[in-house]
């Protein structure tokens, strides 16, 4: 007694557990994922990408700044040449004229500062004022100054280092210490570039003044590169302005793209993610179909995907419910028969009950086989390849196969093939599956046929399709049930038929196969007697 209760508890637990799992696929689906952590999102990659790509032109500008240094270098070289020419010119003029005469030619308001020295290095004239060598700082507002500082700090990053020596401080009363002067007095001219106040360039040249072979003095020339600086700064500011404008535009474009592309994509991705966790209804997926672009298409695709997914899950759920329902009938019958068997005494009744039990076992087996076949059919149809084949030959073979077996099956019906098709009759099909359909339909027709009845297979050609009709002379289909008979587990069998030989899945499987061939299957009652099942297959 106690072990009885234990078994029962155990059974309850086992079956309870199973039914909990299979009872509601949607629920178990959720439960399965409930324990898993949601995947964390990576930082917005698309946004980074968009901004990054938009910054490329800006980076090109930075390159331009580097080349700007090069440009400055070439400006300096040109200016150096110029300085040399100038000092050579001055020294040539001086060599042929007296220094006093030349002084008259010297420009007064020029930024070239010149010092002339006699043979022994004694100063003849000079307009060099050390403090005037540096250009005065520009008057600028607070903003301008700050901006200027930021600017030069920024450009210093890209400047080519000249590593120039600083121009030595000059004692205006003792100009003999000017760089290169001594060499010039000894007949060797020199040309130098200096830096002044860190940011300015200064050119100097010391050139001997020749009198035939002798040196009769030297000219020292110094000039700040104000023009270079001015040109350079102007260019630099232009680039800088462009730089800011481009950054501004590129940020704008980035923001627009992010708004137009990344944000809706993120919303769709979030929606897709939530579908995975099984909590999304169709209304939660953003409808962007009115965008009319690729993202709109994506949202449409996602929505139809979700719809298909739900339909599929509903189908699975319905199928599972149908299956358990169908399995319960034979089980009920077996339980009932077993219980009755224990109580009946008459040998005739016992035999009857045993027959029932045997039938139920067959019935269960047939059901389970058909159910497993029906579940695998989808996969099979998508995996197996379709090939062109001759419909006439296929039907001929099936008919011959039946005619050879009819006697063995204990049937006295006849099968006739009416071929009204003159052409090739080529269709692209899955041969095994299509054979399964026709076999199923002929089996059905035979089981509904009266004794010595005739099953007719008619093959007709239509403009774009072939039509195969299989008719019997049986009781026909109950009016109004012509499409219902294709439903799963719908069963309408002849009264005296060997019970339990059919699962109610046959026609549903036929329909599934024909639909996979983009064909049509339909049933109707003949005008005189019996029913016709028509399969329409598109020409290949």
């Amino acid at each position, binding site marked *: 007694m106690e072990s009885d209760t234990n078994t029962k508890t155990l059974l309850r637990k086992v*079956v309870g557990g199973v039914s909990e799992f299979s009872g509601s696929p949607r629920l178990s689906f959720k439960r399965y994922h409930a324990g898993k952590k949601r995947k964390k999102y990576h930082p917005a990659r698309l946004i980074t990408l968009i901004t990054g790509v938009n910054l490329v032109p800006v980076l090109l500008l930075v390159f331009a700044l580097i080349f700007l240094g090069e440009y400055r270098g070439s400006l300096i070289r040109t200016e150096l040449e110029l300085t040399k020419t100038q000092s050579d010119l001055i020294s040539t003029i001086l060599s042929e004229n007296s220094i006093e005469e030349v002084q008259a030619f010297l420009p007064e308001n020029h930024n070239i500062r010149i010092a002339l020295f006699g043979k022994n290095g004694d100063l003849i004239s000079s307009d060099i004022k050390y403090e005037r060598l540096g250009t005065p700082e520009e008057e600028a507002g607070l903003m301008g100054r700050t901006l200027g500082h930021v600017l030069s700090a920024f450009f210093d990053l890209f400047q080519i280092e000249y590593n120039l020596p600083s121009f030595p401080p000059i004692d205006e009363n003792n100009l003999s210490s000017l760089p290169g002067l001594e060499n010039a007095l000894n007949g060797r001219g020199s040309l130098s570039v200096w830096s002044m106040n860190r940011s300015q360039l200064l050119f100097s040249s010391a050139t001997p003044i020749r009198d035939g072979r002798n040196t009769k003095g030297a000219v020292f020339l110094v000039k700040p590169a104000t023009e270079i600086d001015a040109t350079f700064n102007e260019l630099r500011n232009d680039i800088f302005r462009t730089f800011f404008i481009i950054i501004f535009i590129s940020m704008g474009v980035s923001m627009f793209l992010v708004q137009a592309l990344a944000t809706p994509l993120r919303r769709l991705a979030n929606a897709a993610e939530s579908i995975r966790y099984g909590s999304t209804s169709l209304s939660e997926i953003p409808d962007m179909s009115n965008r009319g672009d690729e993202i709109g298409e994506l949202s449409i695709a996602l929505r139809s995907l979700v719809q298909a997914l739900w339909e599929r899950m509903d189908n699975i759920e319905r199928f599972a419910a149908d299956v*358990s329902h169908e399995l319960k*009938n*034979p089980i009920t019958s077996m339980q009932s028969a077993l219980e*009755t068997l224990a109580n009946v005494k008459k040998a005739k009744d016992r035999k009857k009950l045993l027959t*029932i039990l045997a039938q139920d076992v067959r019935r269960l087996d047939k059901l389970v086989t058909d159910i497993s076949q029906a579940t695998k059919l989808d996969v099979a149809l998508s995996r197996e390849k379709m090939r062109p084949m001759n419909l006439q030959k296929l039907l001929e073979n099936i008919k011959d196969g039946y005619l050879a077996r009819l006697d063995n099956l204990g049937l006295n019906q006849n099968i006739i093939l009416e071929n009204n098709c003159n052409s090739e009759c080529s269709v692209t099909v899955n041969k095994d599956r299509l054979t399964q359909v026709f076999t199923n339909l002929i089996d059905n027709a035979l089981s509904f046929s009266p004794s010595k009845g005739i099953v007719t297979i008619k093959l007709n050609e239509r403009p774009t399709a072939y039509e195969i009709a299989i008719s019997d002379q049986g009781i026909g289909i109950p009016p109004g049930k012509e499409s219902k008979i294709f439903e799963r587990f719908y069963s309408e069998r002849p009264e005296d038929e060997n019970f339990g030989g059919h699962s109610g899945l046959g026609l549903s499987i036929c329909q599934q196969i024909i639909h996979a061939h983009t064909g049509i299957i339909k049933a109707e009652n003949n005008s005189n007697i019996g029913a016709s099942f028509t399969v329409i297959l598109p020409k290949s």
Partner: protein
Amino acid sequence: MNQTIALVDDDKNITTSVSMALEAEGFSVIVYHDGEAGFRGISDHNPDIAVLDVKMPRMDGIELIQKLRQDHKTLPIIFLTSKDDEIDEVIGLRMGADDYITKPFSQRLLIERIKTLLRRQSFAEGGDSTSGDEDSLIKRGPLTLDEDRHVCTWNGTNVVLTVTEYLLMKSLTEKPGHVRSREQLIDVAYGQSTYVDDRMIDSHIKRIRKKFKDIDPNFNQIETIYGVGYKYENPA
């Protein structure tokens, strides 16, 4: 006189063995294999009770009971269902079924249900308008259970319970305040030998509560004891 049972089910194997068992109990059984034949047969033969399958070709059990109820308002009807959600359709929508049994079922259970319904019916038809024998009454405050007729009343108003619901109610009210486990309740309602999912009891209790609340919105005498079962408390 033998009482007549109309058995309507498209599964011939089930009807064969079930009618054998019912005949052994002394009933006469008429079997129909689809809803249409069942409707015609029941209309012609006026059986004492009808046992209907829900899913049948031509006319299903739900359509059948709707048609039957137009002329046979008092005919006791038991439904055989194999889907849990059909119970709500049959009972919840008040299609007029008096009880239901889920497939697969034990014959003992079916016979018990048939007998109970027939007894309830005979009391109702016997013109015995007063309550049954005082000895057969279980009284718990406003609640009265009539053991003879399987009738339950709350403050004098009849609460239409199925046999299963009645048996559960009786078990719960035997000792008010005492907890009944789900397994105890299953044993009471279905007998020891049957396997029933624990959750079946939950849905039964839900239906019982709803039926009482329809009459008295303040009804809260059936308490859920989490993880254990249920108990009935007498109203204060």
